[in-house]
């Protein structure tokens, strides 16, 4: 699902005004937080204190280290999901047999909330790096898989017929038609997968071994360090928004021919 972004319709002046309003909104929010945050030091914290705490953690290397841990876990899980999801999705699109017989399984497994599986994964596979990667993988793989399969499956009949009229072989058909057509679908699956992998990363860090940003968050919370908890929470939300934006950029970058048909 697209995040609420500007349609880019208006003139630059209107857009400038929009940005200004957004900034004012953010500032007002910060101000309100600063005022509210002074009421109870344990239950709340001010943005200034949160920022100081983040800065301190950056200086002593905890935060960069945690970011790196989280990043590695996220990337490993996402990479596995992309490889597995795109690969199997393409295979599914060409083998009707495989599709009809396994698709219901995919949908069944997809509807299992991964949070609920976390304790089982913990018990079965422990809390090591690979168990955590498994959690991230399971969180992210389904949107990639389903989108890719749908994309490849919904290749316009006309294009397949063009290939067949020109007596294309199966390999050439994949190269010229199926893969390029599935690409943007796979990319929008990957965009969703990125968001899901991020959630999965936190599930892994919260319920398996507490490392990375999730670990810091839990640690700060058990030390009653609200400033850090709030600071990290905001950081997470900024990271999430950035990842969404990145996903959208990726989605666009991989399909230059998909742009609108304006002159």
């Amino acid at each position, binding site marked *: 699902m*697209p995040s609420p972004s500007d349609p880019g319709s208006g003139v630059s002046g209107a857009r400038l005004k929009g940005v200004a309003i957004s900034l004012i909104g953010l500032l007002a929010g910060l101000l309100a937080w600063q005022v509210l945050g002074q009421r109870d030091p344990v239950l709340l914290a001010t943005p200034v204190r949160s920022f100081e705490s983040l800065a301190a953690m950056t200086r002593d290397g905890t935060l960069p280290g945690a970011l790196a841990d989280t990043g590695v876990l996220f990337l490993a899980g996402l990479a596995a999901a992309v490889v597995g999801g795109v690969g199997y999705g393409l295979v599914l699109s060409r083998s009707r047999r495989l599709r009809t*017989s396994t698709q219901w399984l995919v949908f069944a497994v997809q*509807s299992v909330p991964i*949070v609920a599986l976390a304790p*089982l994964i913990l018990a079965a596979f422990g809390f090591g790096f690979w168990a955590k990667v498994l959690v991230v993988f399971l969180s992210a793989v389904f949107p990639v898989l389903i989108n890719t399969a749908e994309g490849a499956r*919904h290749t316009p009949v006309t294009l397949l017929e063009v290939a067949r009229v020109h007596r294309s072989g199966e390999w050439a058909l994949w190269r010229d038609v199926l893969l390029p057509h599935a690409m943007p679908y796979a990319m929008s699956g990957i965009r969703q997968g990125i968001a899901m992998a991020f959630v999965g990363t936190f599930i892994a860090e919260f319920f398996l071994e507490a490392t990375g940003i999730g670990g810091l968050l*839990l640690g700060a919370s058990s030390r009653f360090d609200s400033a850090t908890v709030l600071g990290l929470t905001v950081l*997470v939300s900024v990271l999430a928004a950035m990842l969404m934006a990145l996903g959208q950029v990726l989605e666009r970058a991989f399909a230059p021919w998909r742009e609108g048909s304006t002159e």
Partner: protein
Amino acid sequence: MRTTQGTTADPTTDPTAAVVSPAVSSGGPSRDVTGKLVAAAAVLLVWQVAGTAWLPDYLPTPLGVLGQAIPTLTSASFLGSVWETVSAVALGLLLGCVPGIVAGLLIGRVAWLRHLSTPYISGLYAMPMLAIVPMATIWFGYNDVTRVIVVALSAFLPCAVSTADGARALPGNLADVARVLNVPRRRFVTDFVLPSALPFAVAGVHVAVGRALVGAAAVEFLANLDGLGTFILTNARSFAQDQAFVGVTVLALLGVLARAGTERLVRRVAPWQHAGRE
């Protein structure tokens, strides 16, 4: 809709897109019951063997789950847990989706509200709700209130974002139609904006249901509230994997049921959505 410029290759809207018919003659089994059975048998077999031979005691097994299904599903405490979760999710969905849809309509139609809320909505929308649970437990306590609030927030965001998209995008040249007919502002909202946003709102609810269940389970894990999540967690931790898996299955089924419900809802409230030509 196709523009006068000719076809654009937008995979999501391409009207010429259709199911690939493989070179094989079209007489193949469309339902493929045997294929499904074979796949099911294969998965269950591998699972059972892995569960018993490779990781005994740590993996739930199909037979074990089957054995636990009846006693678990009929136990009063399990049903109590299910009820706890379901009622909290239902309440949270109500408290999240209704304001979410209203907010979405406003955000979609009122430019300054949209600008004002964009940083917050896009910041929260993509954020794993898990990350706010530590803060939420401090603010709202280790009780049902936190669960309902987290569920409501999980539901609010997709509803608001999706509805806003719908409220902004009128199909075809309906905006022109409205102005040619000099439709008054109030009727523009009721006759144009609401119907065109409706399917988007329901799509938002669809997403919200999934997120709500995850949110509820996460809060239950972290705040030890009675519910399906805690049932899964405590059983998994005491290596009662089969029981835990019964819980997981029930949770997944709840999600499927709720989604099927919203899908039927769409068909009810938006019959025009199912463009089955011919």
